[in-house]
């Protein structure tokens, strides 16, 4: 039969010749729950999906290529746009890879400033993730509660670096500014309020019968699949694998800090389901708050930036660093040819590998579960394409 000019192959089912065909749905790039511009081509049999093929590339901005034209210092603001929900980590990644290229040592206080900013950013990023996940499942209020808390973190980070979303806070060799006066008190006051609010969020959402029914046992990623598909960060820990770059390949001042790495245990549902990933993010926010408190206690005085020449020319060679961003193990690779401009830069992000597993685990799920799955994998569109 022909549909809108296209010939469609139709299957004959049963003796009566009842003709059925799979419905091809175009989900995105403009769809309310694709969190930006993602596209899925969904083959649906009624409400059940046969497959959902992700189509990436709608948000490609050639950020890696830009680095080759703007130089090492100049590339820092562009890194904000790699993952604008958690821009601090991209700042940190670029700073770290340049420092490794040049063999620079970073002052201790700068490292603490970086960790404080990054962990606050991790909290705000996870708040976006859990908030939008609950919104995608249909509850409106928790989304606003999460964003209310995020707003306060945005205020704090605005004090720190003058921007609320694209921070451009870190520099090669340190950070741009020291903590402003009163920042410690205001952050501690925020954390004092934030931790009880997390409990309230748990009361409102995490034990909600409908919410648990919607997330538990939906989109189960086995530990093997998680490793094979290269899942990282909360998605990997949601599958029950205790791996965190901060703990296993420590960078910055993380060895001096005490924190747990939450891993899903499958109390509600199974290990590796959407609920487990959500649960890991909730617990990680508590740990981040703990880390920030420790940083304030342990922070030494001193300069916040090393002496770095304005014309930054690292020796020829290459460097790869990894750090634990809000979406997991983020890799930065840079090749220097000894000039002012990087020869090549490459970012390895968690969202891209999370996209690739959707095709595998979405088979046989309901249409509504695809939305849950995308949200629980915390796919951020700009990070997929860069």
């Amino acid at each position, binding site marked *: 039969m022909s549909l809108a000019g296209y010939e469609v192959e139709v299957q004959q089912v049963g003796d009566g010749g009842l003709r059925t065909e799979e419905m091809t749905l175009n989900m995105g790039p403009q769809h309310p729950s694709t969190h930006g511009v993602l596209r899925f081509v969904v083959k649906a049999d009624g409400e059940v999906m046969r497959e959902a093929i992700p189509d990436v590339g709608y948000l490609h901005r050639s950020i890696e290529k830009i680095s080759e034209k703007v130089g090492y210092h100049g590339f820092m603001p562009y890194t904000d746009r790699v993952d604008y929900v958690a821009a601090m980590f991209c700042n940190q990644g670029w700073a770290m890879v340049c420092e490794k290229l040049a063999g620079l040592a970073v002052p201790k206080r700068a490292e603490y400033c970086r960790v404080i900013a990054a962990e606050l950013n991790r909290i705000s990023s996870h708040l976006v993730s859990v908030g939008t996940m609950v919104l995608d499942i*249909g*509850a409106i209020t928790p989304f606003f509660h999460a964003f*209310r808390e995020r707003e306060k973190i945005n205020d704090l980070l605005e004090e720190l670096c003058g921007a609320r979303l694209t921070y451009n806070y870190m520099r090669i060799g340190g950070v741009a500014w020291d903590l402003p006066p009163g920042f410690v008190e205001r952050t501690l006051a925020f954390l004092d309020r934030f931790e009880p609010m997390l409990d309230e969020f748990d009361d409102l959402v995490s034990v909600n019968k*409908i919410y648990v029914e919607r997330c538990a046992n939906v989109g189960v990623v086995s530990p093997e699949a998680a490793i094979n598909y290269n899942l990282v960060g909360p998605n990997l820990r949601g599958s029950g694998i205790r791996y965190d770059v901060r703990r296993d390949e420590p960078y910055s001042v993380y060895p001096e800090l005490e924190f747990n790495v939450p891993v899903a245990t499958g109390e509600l549902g199974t290990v590796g389901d959407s609920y487990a990933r959500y649960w890991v993010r909730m617990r990680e926010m508590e740990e981040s708050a703990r880390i920030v408190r420790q940083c304030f206690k342990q922070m030494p005085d001193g300069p916040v930036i090393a002496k770095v020449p304005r014309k930054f020319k690292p020796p020829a060679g290459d460097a790869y660093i990894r750090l634990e961003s809000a979406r997991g193990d983020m890799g930065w690779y840079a090749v220097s040819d000894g000039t002012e401009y990087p020869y090549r830069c490459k970012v390895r992000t968690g969202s891209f590998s999370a996209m690739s597993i959707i095709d595998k685990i979405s088979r046989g799920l309901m249409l509504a579960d695809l939305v849950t799955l995308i949200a629980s994998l915390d796919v951020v569109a700009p990070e997929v394409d860069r």
Partner: protein
Amino acid sequence: MQAFLDRLIAQGYFRGVPTQVVYALGIVLAAALVIFVFVLIMAGVTTFIERRVWARIQSRVGPNRVGPQGAVQWLADGLKLLMKEDLVPVEADPRLFRLAPYVVVIGFLATFVVVPFSSRLIVADLNVGILYLTSVSSLVVLGILMAGWSSNNKWSLFGGIRAAAQIVSYEIPAALSIFPVILITGTLSMQSIIQAQGWAPWDWFVFHNPFTFLASLLLYTALLAEGNRTPFDLPEADTELVAGFVTEYSGTRYMFFFLVEWGNLYVISAIMVTLFLGGWQVPPVTDNAVVLNLLQFLVFFLKAYFGVLIAMWIRATLPRIRVDQLMTTCWKYLVPLSFLNLIGTAVWVVLFPNGSSVMEALMTLIGFGLVGYFVHRVRFHLRRSRAELTWSPFA
């Protein structure tokens, strides 16, 4: 009214038509106008109140620009929608597409024929009132299905099919939960059902016996599902189906769908109040019929609006359930429980033909105990999050 019609007849406007028919038509027309205006204002104000209630729950301000505290925001929204271009997609079935909103509105407005406002204020006290109500409200499904199919959009189709499956399924527990009341009263007329109850809470059918108490909860759940309200708002699940069956609609037709959605809230609550919460019954405080009717109207309206507020609160709190869970909830839990209620009430009516005053007192106590516990929990949470509630986005 009569004088006006008499003058028209005298001027020879209705030559050859019996006077009684003119009177009847005039009354029907007047009633239709009154009801339509009431529904328009009520549904509009409900949208505004819902947005403000949500805003309060969600630490936001909500619309507060148009009129005092944004009170005429709904009017501005309505005018905006009226002025929008009325688009019909090229690939859509234009006749069905244009017809669908009217079918929905007709199905919804027809329910108001039997919705009582006070002991005198009712368009028609049909002796099959509640049966009529459940029947005509099914017209809404037809309209939604038409809208979903004719849009020629896959998301709309999903919405329409979901709506049909959902509303048809939930008609069954809804009807089965109405039966216990009919068993007790032996009538289908809305006014007679209210007259069988009293003004005091222990005279209400919700506290008549344990089965009616359960039936009232089941009925409210089932009616929420029929009205496409959260947690059963699957037909227009915005994060899954873009906007469900209204995806392709714009302007006035879009407004009609939303008029029905918010107006339906009042109908749902009115059914609940009529069947279980004593309707318009007030203590006999005055002999003046006008004052008494106004008082009854006020009591009925406040009770019904309380139900509307609960629906808003539920919508602001609960996530949406999945389509298979929707069916599971209906067929595996609500329907068997409704049957249990039906049998239980039948046995109860045989055992206590005039109702058991001990059980009524006990049920009332339990009901008030539940309300007390709820208030206690609310106070607990208010204390815990006072700092958050006083937090202002403008500070």
